């Protein structure tokens, strides 16, 4: 009984939090140390989280020829293939904050994005009816919904923190880290994603899943 109380106290103080966060930070550092070459994912995250132009240059370096080859294969037209580099890499820049680490590799993300832009470009060039776009045919995996809902429910969640604590361990480590950042450390989505070095899109989807899981756990309790 006493132990439980103490644990709860620690949970709510800065000290308890700092310990948890520090250990998390360590694990991510050791991950980086294993990679000598900067991964595509890290580059994409740098582009998404702080508009890192150098990182974008490196991605451009790595992928523009691949995109050109894809364009040549699908359009058999050098001009269009070149336009595709522009279209696809512009899309990479614009959508980098939406990249979700949990849904696949950076190269897979860039591939589908390039294919989709190529498809739309070809349709436009052939002047085909534009009722359907590539994103309708290859829909981004559903999950774009209630990011705003999380904010609205925030008050309710804080009240229930002590209640939730017992369920906290049932979240996966990455989900717990995100919940701690947002609800305990009171960071914004942007701050939290920068701190955890994950894309904003990943942060939002992890938060959504974590809140949904906590909800269902509490629901079971009733």
């Amino acid at each position, binding site marked *: 009984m006493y132990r439980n109380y103490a644990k709860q106290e620690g949970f709510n103080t800065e000290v308890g939090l700092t310990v948890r966060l520090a250990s998390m930070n360590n694990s991510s550092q050791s991950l980086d140390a294993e990679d000598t070459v900067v991964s595509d994912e890290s580059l994409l995250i740098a582009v998404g989280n702080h508009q890192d132009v150098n990182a974008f240059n490196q991605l451009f370096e790595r992928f523009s*020829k691949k995109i050109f080859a894809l364009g040549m294969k699908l359009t058999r037209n050098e001009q269009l293939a070149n336009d595709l580099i522009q279209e696809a890499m512009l899309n990479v*820049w*614009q959508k980098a*904050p939406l990249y979700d680490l949990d849904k696949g590799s950076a190269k897979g993300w860039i591939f589908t994005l390039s294919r989709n832009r190529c498809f739309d470009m070809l349709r436009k060039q052939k002047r085909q*009816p534009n009722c359907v776009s590539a994103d*309708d045919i290859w829909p981004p995996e559903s999950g774009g919904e209630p990011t705003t809902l999380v904010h609205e429910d925030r008050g309710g969640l804080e009240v229930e923190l002590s209640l939730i604590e017992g369920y906290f361990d049932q979240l996966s480590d990455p989900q717990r880290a995100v919940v701690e950042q947002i609800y305990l450390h009171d960071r914004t989505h942007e701050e939290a994603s920068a701190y955890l070095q994950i894309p904003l899109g990943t942060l939002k989807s992890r938060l959504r899943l974590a809140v949904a899981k906590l909800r269902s756990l509490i629901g079971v309790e009733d």
Partner: protein
Amino acid sequence: MNTDVNMHPSSQLLNQFIQGELATGKSIIVSAHMELCKSCCAKAKELEALAVSSWVDPSIAPQLESPSATDYSSMVASIVQSAQLSSEPVEEVVEVQMDVLDDSIKLPKVLAKAAQQGLNWKQVAGGISEAQLILDDETQCEFIYMAPGSKVPVHTHKGSETTLVLKGSFEDELGEYKASDFIVRDTQHHHQPGSKEGCLCFAVLDSPLKFTQGLARFMNPVNSYTFKKAISKAVTS
């Protein structure tokens, strides 16, 4: 046994779909099937992973030199000036409810989107109606409704015909097809589909049907005409 009958798209077709090699009509019918079929989604995921690794594999992908005339540094410089997105652009959700066979069904999202251009139903034979969609310049795409107890005249196909069952069922000499079944037929098949309980399908034809029996033969030139019209509309619109 007929190996050409697929209740699901073949791996080859799924692969072409993932690589973006199919024309719009075919892409849409595969996508609509995938919305209804978890196993094809899983298979497509695996194929996509393969496609991606061969895409980035320098030993497989031909290293095409892009023209040196293009100034990529200015391309990059202009790209990084543009604003980034903080959330997915909100797509309008299109829902198309269809009243079929004493029931109301929701079309797969991609078909609902395509059907936005408006459906103009025409009676083509006893109990059979179709509504054409213009999606590309290579195929004829249409919704087909078969009233309970109706039969399509015997026909063969010049090209292939891909059919997705959306509601009810139909049957031919080779089997019975139910909702979410994906059926590919080509020139070799002489078949006469019929539907006991009634059926709504979406179909994509590479070229017009050829009727082979009785009075319906006289419809052939007309059929060919409507196909050409569908194609030319796609090109000029």
